[in-house]
């Protein structure tokens, strides 16, 4: 297995080279002598080329959270086959930019809409946002009704683009 780690959309490789009382790793092209010592379940010390740093770490499924130097990094674990990235938005799907709640649905299934028309009013935390049609066409389905909550990336409204003739 060759784990890949993704930080802010950039992929990095870490490869074990050999292991004695320390471990030699190829970290994104840099060969380093590394030691890791745990103080407790989440807290430890990592020494790279003789320089120690305190770290805190926690893992949730394929995501690691690492706190070093007063900062937190979110590290996504991708296996060697790589995670599939969904580009979304290629059709007329209007996806949620953030998690939230639907306040008002301004269209019905079957309605014709023009690009830029307001199709929904959503609210996230304290902010209301108008969701606009990404294409001109016909509303084929409505993903969430008024009062329903949704997660980031959920399809709020699907629109079939009008045939250009």
């Amino acid at each position, binding site marked *: 297995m060759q784990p890949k780690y993704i930080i802010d959309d950039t992929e990095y490789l870490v490869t074990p080279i050999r292991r004695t009382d320390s471990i030699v790793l190829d970290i994104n092209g840099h060969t380093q002598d590394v030691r890791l010592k745990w103080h407790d379940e989440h807290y430890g010390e*990592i020494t790279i080329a003789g320089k120690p740093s305190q770290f805190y770490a*926690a*893992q949730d499924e394929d995501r690691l959270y690492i706190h070093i130097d007063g900062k*937190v990094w979110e590290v996504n*674990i991708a296996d060697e086959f790589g995670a599939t990235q969904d580009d979304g938005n290629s059709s007329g799907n209007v996806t949620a930019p953030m998690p939230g709640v639907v306040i008002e649905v301004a269209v019905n299934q079957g309605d014709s809409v023009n690009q830029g028309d307001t199709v929904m009013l959503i*609210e996230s935390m304290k902010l209301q946002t108008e969701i606009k049609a990404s294409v001109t066409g016909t509303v084929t389905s409505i993903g969430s009704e008024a009062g329903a909550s949704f997660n980031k990336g959920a399809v709020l409204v699907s629109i079939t683009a009008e045939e250009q003739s």
Partner: protein
Amino acid sequence: MTAEPLFKKVLIANRGEIALRILRALQAMEIPSVAIYHSSDRHSPVVRLADEAVEITGDSPSSAHLDVEQIISICHELEVDAVHPCYGFLSENAKFARALNDASIAFIGPSAEVIELMGDKITSREFVEQHGFPVPPSVSLDADDAGFDDAIAAMQFPLVVKASAGGGGKGMSIVHSVEELQSTLRIAASEAEKYFGDKRVYVERYFSSARHIEVQILGDGENIIHLGERECSIQRRFQKIIEEAPSPAFTQEKRDQICETAAGIARAAHYSSAGTVEFLYTPEGEFFFLEMNTRIQVEHPVTEMVYNVDLVQEQIKIAAGKSLDIKQADVSMSGHAIECRLCAEDAFNGFLPETGKVLYLKEPTGERVRFDSGLYQGQDVTTAFDPMLAKLIVHADTRDQAIHGSIKALKQLVLLGVKINTQYLINVLSHPAFKTGNIDTGFVSTFIDDLKVDSTSQEQLQSVLATAYLTDRNTKLLLDATPEPYAAIGNWRN
């Protein structure tokens, strides 16, 4: 402590950090407590630590906390004789205060009449203006009224649209042209109706380079004192993220002037409880009344630290009918305090809300470091409630030391599993313009590019990747399963 507590039992009608803050005051005063909670908060510290805890239900977690009837029936059932509303939810709801009053339960806050007068932005402005205090130019007509367009035309853009019953940045937006105004009014009215059940909005001249200054008030209806000002200009989306006391803007003369004005406004209203008078302070040194908050505020700890007064305990004593035994001459401020609000949000991407599970939490500690939090390991952070999770307050002799101490404590805070705005707060505190104290409400947008910087050094990247690899459960399994070849060779040779 006297033998007889001030109340038989106090119900805390809130959640999160502020519910825990109120609980601590009740415990210090030896008053029995009741926590109410939605099931999503059943593991929270206030539920564990209060003397009693009762689950409340509703269509959504927030609607449960807004259910007046349900809360009052719990009060009756458990023989509660006072309710602390904290901030948000029912804290500025005059109907709730009145319903409690009718049920012979004390509302720990001002009277329903004062909430109605001062909690409403339109009526409070009229009241303040009538008493000869300064208010900014504004229009408070309904958008459908004749004369609205003319009144708007007479004002200078930009304008700010606000919900009359609003607070905490809800239902507010800035408008730069007449064209923008129509749709903004529609959204503002809809937000106002949803949050406050009151769709009245008003339009006010917007001062883009003013400071947001507020004055803490404490009164029993007769004796009304101020506890200095708080500087609250560092805001994003109209919500404060860093507050400090005192404001670096003032000479002592100016401070006295604005604080006396605030106390005068509270006196005119015969204010009884803790409250806050908010002002806009322009670079020319003018100030205008903005609104009064008739509740304990999120940022109250900075005042508590520099004045060494427990505002919540004073609130409780006043609600129990005691007269305020602190005179203006008794109080003076000492040092400088800064509060940072820790919010679940992606500060580097439009402050969009973040959700997740708290996998690990280590709170910052230190002398004169206060961490007000309701956080716990295992907590699911959802969008059901406000994104503010905790507050860090640092007190020091000087502003520079308070800034330095805040940065140090922010770096000590470890919260894994939910993205929060720690680095952004550090960027603000480290910014040269913040350090000079020359700040206004435009700070976050003026320095948007500087504040976005979130760089990772090559050395940090290597530490993070090596830690990731070696703490990754998959690697741990792999390493445990693989024999150590070099160790084995060593054994062979000897």
